[in-house]
């Protein structure tokens, strides 16, 4: 295989860039990072809901891509392979968080100094802006409340815009199941947010 120069790397397809990485061209890793950092961030943020954890997950996804670069085979699209790694990491983190959330620290009601504070939002928003902000929050909340199987397919389809075939491959589920889960997830979502959010808001 021919080794590409750095400027050539930018012209290559994802799969060709990955081949360069497998051949030892370390710069190919930077290309993969620059192409996927925002896509993975947008995907994983729906699981973490904060930038710090999300960045850690994105970083770990890239490091795993590098570590297991030799196990990647061209029969799969690079994006599909990367999303599979990211989804597995997100699921593991999500399970860990769920276990941890069973231990919570509440304010001691008998202690007057131990109170939970509500911090008011000091930024005053215009009506439309406020409505949009609340709508986005409600939608994000409804999305996070979906069961795991529904959540993953709807994020992959409607946020990441992946095809049904790619989702089937990433989640390891039959195409019929993917379609059924997406339809049911969308219905559930609409039922959850129907009262709060009008689709015209977006």
């Amino acid at each position, binding site marked *: 295989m021919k080794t590409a120069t750095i400027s050539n790397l930018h012209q290559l397809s994802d799969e060709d860039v990955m081949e360069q990485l497998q051949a030892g061209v370390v710069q190919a890793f930077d290309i993969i*990072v620059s192409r996927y950092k925002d896509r993975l*961030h947008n995907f994983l943020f729906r699981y973490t809901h904060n930038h710090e954890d999300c960045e850690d997950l994105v970083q770990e996804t890239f490091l795993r891509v590098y570590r297991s670069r030799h196990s990647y085979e061209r029969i799969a699209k690079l994006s599909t392979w990367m999303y599979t790694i990211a989804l597995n990491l997100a699921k593991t983190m999500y399970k860990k968080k769920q276990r941890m959330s069973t231990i919570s620290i509440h304010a001691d009601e008998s202690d007057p100094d131990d109170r939970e504070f509500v911090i008011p939002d000091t930024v005053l928003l215009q009506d439309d802006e406020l409505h949009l902000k609340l709508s986005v929050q409600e939608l994000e909340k409804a999305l996070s409340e979906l069961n795991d199987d529904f959540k993953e397919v709807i994020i992959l389809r409607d946020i990441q815009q992946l095809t049904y075939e790619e989702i089937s491959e990433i989640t390891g589920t039959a195409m*019929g199941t993917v*379609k*059924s889960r997406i*339809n049911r997830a969308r*219905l559930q*979502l*609409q039922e959850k947010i129907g009262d709060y959010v009008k689709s015209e808001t977006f």
Partner: protein
Amino acid sequence: MNVSNLNKHSYSMFLNFSESDDVIHSIISSITEESLTPAEQLTLKDLYISSPVLARYAKAGLKSKKMIANLPKVNARPNFDQKMAAAFSLELQKEEVRLNASLLNRKEPV
């Protein structure tokens, strides 16, 4: 999915609509993904009347899809590249150490 094929047979199957029915879900997907042909589009109204459950799924699907697609994108923050570069450089160092160690182990004793 060919909705018109279904018209040729009967809409009665929609009366027994099961949530796990692959055919029905394929039709709902075609509607929500807006991949119907103009001819199929014309039959939609009848289809909705025949199966209110299918109509509910399809309409909710179209709305949800539109809302989610317009959620603001969450991109990586500007300092991500720096953090990633640092983590990757550490990874390369670790790899080198591992490689050296395995080379040393492979060497025959003098």
